[in-house]
């Protein structure tokens, strides 16, 4: 291909060519590593044209050379990579990339280069790649998937490459509300926004392009007697300055959801990355709640597929016209126009006026007529009416068009006549317009087929959403303005604005003739491909093959051929695909149906989706007041809910296991302290507080005396355990409930729910106080000695504070609640102090305990200590399907109380079943072998899977206290199997055998905690 530039000179065009570029300002950029320059105002696509580059990528499946086809976001072909290194972003449409100094862009899907792509061999072997190729070919043997098929497919397929490092830019999200959201800033959108704004509504108007006005600059027609551009410029300025309209360019409305929740993607800095240095985010995702939505998203021109219609240089007619008018570029030196409507004649006359020869207008209609046709004739343009392109000739491996073949044709079929060859190097094609109905469909909007435009238009939506203008199939300028003002007025609820509407005129246009594809002459499909979906390389032959193979439903055809499933969501292809199916089945298009358009309208960045939530904001981390102390002490962390708790505190070069063992032995032999602040704490007060507790716990609490506590279990109504903890009586009708750390919020909501919705007569208040307190366990034989060293008025003696009792007082100058409870089996207290005093108090405990060898212990030591005692942990021994009876906790399940949550469910047959799994202890045959967590027990080990599973390990640890491994498990009828052996087949054929024992491994009589 020649590298001659396609920039059109301005001389003699009267300023109508290249209006958006500034020829006095050159902008340097790179394409595939090579330096080029364009002008300020260029897009990457126009700058590449200007540098004579028409091949910008290789196709997805056949690796055919591809060029720019469309305009803005409807471009299916020219997907490029923009940026380098960690700022590389793949799959950006070259038609939407605004040129800035230093822009680096690369072609995709090509190896070794876009000019010479080895993958093009797929194209030569294309008869081997029919529709459903992957389904048909890569079926067996299964082993081939991993080693052969997948690597090949991964190498050959896929669009673009990922950036090679973390994204250094910032992104954010913004929430807002408005009365009216107008989607699209063409004349219809601007008119609707003006009408709504005049009525006092708060309006957002968003357009995905850098400029407002849609295609008003090239659409012909006048507003108030002048070119449309004048009115659009004035209106846009008025709206932006009004203070009740938020005007947004470079902002794509990507999705519409229930109740008019709309998502918009704003490209804040892509066009000028320098503003990021001043603090601007790169992208911003808008979450808009709009009372009303007006969709003025316009229409997308559709091509007419003909043989090899994907060759670089074949473009949509309006795209050719817009590139010429806006950027002063043409796709070649000599064009032909292929059309079924009048609008394409504008392209022909515009090209000619700019000095670009047009060899022929090929119109499928037998008798085109009207002012636009007359103007073309007057300009001396040659027209072949009743004809179609039936072939395309190209050289240099398809990269350079040399001619098209034209034959007589009618939309009802081929007519006899001679073929003619017309020399040209580009083709502008127009097959009519498809309203952009995507947003209307995102949230369930339905469509109707409109015969006049041969496409789908929106049916009334259930949400307050209306579609106007060409998106609604209204193409006549005067009718479109009427519709737009009416929609704006209706949205604002006023009737004053319409008077200000400009008077619109436009040239009358003749009707279009539907044509879904123009067949090639010669043997069917011999080197001729009629592309329907450029992005996924789907051809007319693929669709017809799918039909022949029985994929009759359009939804099946879509999935089988991948029509419309690429990142462009079928913008240029879906309706044509339906037209082809209509032709091959003989059914009218409305009977074929349409497939769903799903969000997003165009792909948008992961950065915008993540927004602020990256790095330290990636996930919420809750900190206790002692967080910094743990951090400074070198703690490793365990996430519990959103909390970070200290897992263990390795010293020096200790590994985690050594640290955990040391911490456990310190508690058993001396004294340890644990930050238990994350435990849920709920104050419960009122005349019915005791009665409430009796209904939510399996055991009785109303009999508790002030200063006493009790351990309780909570079931849901299905009879399954969901939380446990110690609740103490603070005074008359006043209790403090402790919950698990993970269950804190769940339990307080649970209590509120029952009080508000079921036991509405109960007089009880519940208030979560978790965050108010720092709470520390002080556990070990020296716990009392340590605490007695603290200054204060709390009696820690065995008589003064008996097991399962609490007292309040002052300790080290702060108010404290002291509970004598034990989760380790040792002499143990829990001290709660107000959180702001927490860290200092924690340090006091360490100071006071120094002489006893006190050390902090983490959550892992806590778990081993409780497992040695056979204490259950919610979430380990329970999984939402375990009852208290399964765990052998019948002692905590009241028989006397008439009603409490889950009681009746326990009698249901499946929960009373004697074959249920029961909690047991396990001792492995080899004491040094620690069972894997969750390991399955089987009745017998067999060669063939599956084996008969009889239970699973729920907790498993190395116990330094017993110097051997211990585990707990739920085993079918386990309690009747004491002393029996169970087998656990684990990884790589290994089998571990263990004896079923009582789950209390240490200090069975509980002597150690009662001293």
């Amino acid at each position, binding site marked *: 291909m020649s590298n001659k530039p396609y920039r059109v000179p301005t001389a003699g065009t009267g300023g109508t060519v290249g209006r958006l570029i500034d020829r006095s300002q050159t902008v340097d950029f790179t394409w595939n590593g090579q330096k080029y320059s364009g002008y300020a105002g260029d897009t990457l696509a126009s700058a590449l044209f200007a540098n004579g580059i028409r091949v910008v990528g290789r196709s997805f499946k056949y690796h055919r050379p591809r060029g720019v086809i469309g305009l803005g976001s409807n471009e299916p072909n020219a997907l490029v990579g923009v940026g380098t290194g960690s700022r590389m972003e793949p799959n950006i449409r070259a038609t939407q990339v605004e040129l800035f100094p230093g822009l680096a862009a690369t072609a995709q899907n090509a190896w070794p280069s876009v000019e010479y792509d080895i993958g093009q061999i797929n194209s030569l072997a294309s008869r081997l790649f029919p529709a459903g190729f992957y389904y048909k070919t890569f079926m067996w043997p299964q082993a081939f998937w991993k080693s052969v098929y997948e690597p090949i497919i991964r190498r050959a397929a896929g669009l673009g490459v990922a950036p090679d490092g973390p994204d250094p830019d910032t992104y954010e999200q913004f929430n807002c509300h408005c009365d009216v959201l107008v989607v699209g800033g063409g004349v219809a959108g601007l008119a609707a926004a003006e009408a709504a704004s005049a009525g006092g509504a708060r309006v957002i108007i968003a357009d995905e392009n850098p400029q407002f006005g849609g295609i008003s600059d090239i659409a012909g027609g006048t507003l108030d007697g002048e070119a449309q551009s004048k009115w659009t410029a004035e209106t846009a300025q008025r709206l932006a300055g009004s203070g009740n309209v938020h005007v947004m360019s470079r902002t794509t409305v990507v999705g519409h*959801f*229930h*109740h*008019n*929740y709309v998502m918009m993607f704003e490209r804040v800095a892509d066009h000028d990355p320098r503003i990021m240095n001043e603090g601007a985010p790169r992208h911003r995702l808008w979450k808009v*709640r709009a009372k009303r939505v007006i969709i003025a998203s316009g229409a997308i021109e559709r091509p007419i597929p003909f043989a090899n219609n994907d060759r670089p240089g074949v473009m949509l007619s309006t795209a050719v016209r817009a590139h010429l008018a806006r950027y002063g570029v043409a796709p070649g030196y000599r064009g032909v126009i292929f059309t079924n409507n009048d609008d394409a004649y504008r392209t022909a006359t515009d090209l000619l006026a700019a000095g670009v020869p047009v060899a022929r207008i090929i119109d499928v209609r037998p008798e085109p007529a009207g002012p636009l046709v007359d103007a073309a004739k007057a300009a001396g343009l040659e027209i072949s009416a009743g004809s179609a392109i039936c072939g395309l000739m190209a050289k240099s491996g398809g990269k350079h068009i040399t001619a098209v073949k034209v034959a007589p044709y009618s939309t009802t079929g081929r007519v006899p006549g001679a073929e003619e060859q017309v020399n040209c190097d580009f083709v502008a094609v127009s097959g009519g317009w498809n309203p952009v109905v995507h947003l209307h469909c995102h949230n369930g909007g339905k469509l109707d087929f409109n015969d006049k435009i041969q496409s789908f238009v929106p049916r009334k939506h*259930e949400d307050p959403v209306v579609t106007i203008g060409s998106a609604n199939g209204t193409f006549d300028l005067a009718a479109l303005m009427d519709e737009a003002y009416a929609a704006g007025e209706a949205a604002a609820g006023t009737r004053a604005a319409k008077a200000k509407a400009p008077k619109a005129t436009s040239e009358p246009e003749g009707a279009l003739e539907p044509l879904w594809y123009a067949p090639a002459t010669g043997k069917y499909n011999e080197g001729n491909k009629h592309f329907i979906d450029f992005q996924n390389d789907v051809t007319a032959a693929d669709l017809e093959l799918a039909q022949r193979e029985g994929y009759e439903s359009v939804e099946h055809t879509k999935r089988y051929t991948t029509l419309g499933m690429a990142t462009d969501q079928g913008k240029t292809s879906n309706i044509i695909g339906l037209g082809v199916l209509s032709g091959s089945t003989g059914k009218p298009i409305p009977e074929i149906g349409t497939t769903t358009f799903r969000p997003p309208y165009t792909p948008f960045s992961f950065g915008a989706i993540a927004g602020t939530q990256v790095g330290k904001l990636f996930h919420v981390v809750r900190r206790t007041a002692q967080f910094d102390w743990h951090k400074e002490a070198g703690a490793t962390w365990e996430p519990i809910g959103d909390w970070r708790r200290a897992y263990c505190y390795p010293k020096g070069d200790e590994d985690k296991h050594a640290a955990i063992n040391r911490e456990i032995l310190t508690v058993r032999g001396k004294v340890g302290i644990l930050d238990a602040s994350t435990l849920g704490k709920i104050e419960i007060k009122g005349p019915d507080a005791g009665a409430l507790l009796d209904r939510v716990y399996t055991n009785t609490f109303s009999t508790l005396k002030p200063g006493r506590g009790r351990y309780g279990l909570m079931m849901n*109504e*299905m009879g399954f355990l969901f939380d446990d903890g110690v609740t103490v009586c603070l005074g008359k009708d006043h209790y403090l409930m402790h919950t698990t750390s993970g269950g804190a919020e769940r339990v307080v*909501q649970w209590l*509120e*729910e029952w009080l*508000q*919705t*079921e*036991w*509405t007569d109960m007089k009880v208040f519940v208030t979560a106080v978790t965050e108010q307190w720092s709470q520390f366990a002080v556990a070990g034989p020296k716990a009392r000695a340590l605490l007695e060293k603290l200054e204060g008025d709390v009696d820690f003696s065995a008589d003064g504070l008996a097991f399962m009792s609490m007292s309040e007082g002052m300790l080290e100058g702060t108010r404290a609640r002291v509970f004598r409870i034990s989760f380790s089996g040792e002499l143990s207290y829990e001290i709660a102090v107000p959180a702001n005093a927490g860290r200092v108090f924690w340090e006091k405990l360490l100071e006071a305990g120094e002489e006893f060898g006190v050390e902090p212990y983490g959550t892992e030591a806590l778990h081993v200590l409780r497992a040695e005692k056979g204490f259950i942990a919610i979430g380990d021994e329970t999984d939402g399907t375990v009852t208290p009876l399964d765990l052998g906790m019948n002692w905590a399940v009241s028989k006397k109380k*008439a*009603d409490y949550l889950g*009681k*009746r*469910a326990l*009698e*249901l*047959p499946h929960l009373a079943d004697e074959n249920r799994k029961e909690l047991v202890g396990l001792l492995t045959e080899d004491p040094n072998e620690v069972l894997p967590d969750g390991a399955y027990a089987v009745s017998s080990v067999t060669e063939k899977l599956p084996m008969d599973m009889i239970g699973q390990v729920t907790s498993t640890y190395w116990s330094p206290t017993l110097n051997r491994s211990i585990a707990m498990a739920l085993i079918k009828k386990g309690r009747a199997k004491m002393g029996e052996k169970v087998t656990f087949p684990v990884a790589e054929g290994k089998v571990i055998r263990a004896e079923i024992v009582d789950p209390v491994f240490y200090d069975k009589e509980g002597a150690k905690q009662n001293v």
Partner: protein
Amino acid sequence: MLVITCPVCGVEGEEADFHCGGEAHITRPATENPEGISDEAQRDYIYMRKNPKGVHFERWRCDRGCGKWFHACRDTVSMEILGYYGITQKPPATLLKKADPLWQAHFEAQLKKAKS
């Protein structure tokens, strides 16, 4: 994203500001009389739910506002919310008339039971 107004505190918010508690008007048999509940009655209470295509009654909580539960009447097809009423109240007749026949049957059965 549904836009919801809490009838208790009047705040308008969206789905994420509220918590959906599922089907409304489920009667807990044990509260009335813990004795003599059949396995079938208990099963239905715990597990069986209506799933109408159309107007439905649900419980919601004003999660990020006043924390109170209330009833909402929602069309499961159009997602329109037709009205709200108190958590201890039965649906107003105007809403019940629009509701799926499953619901009319539900309240008729309740009425019958109360009479007997």
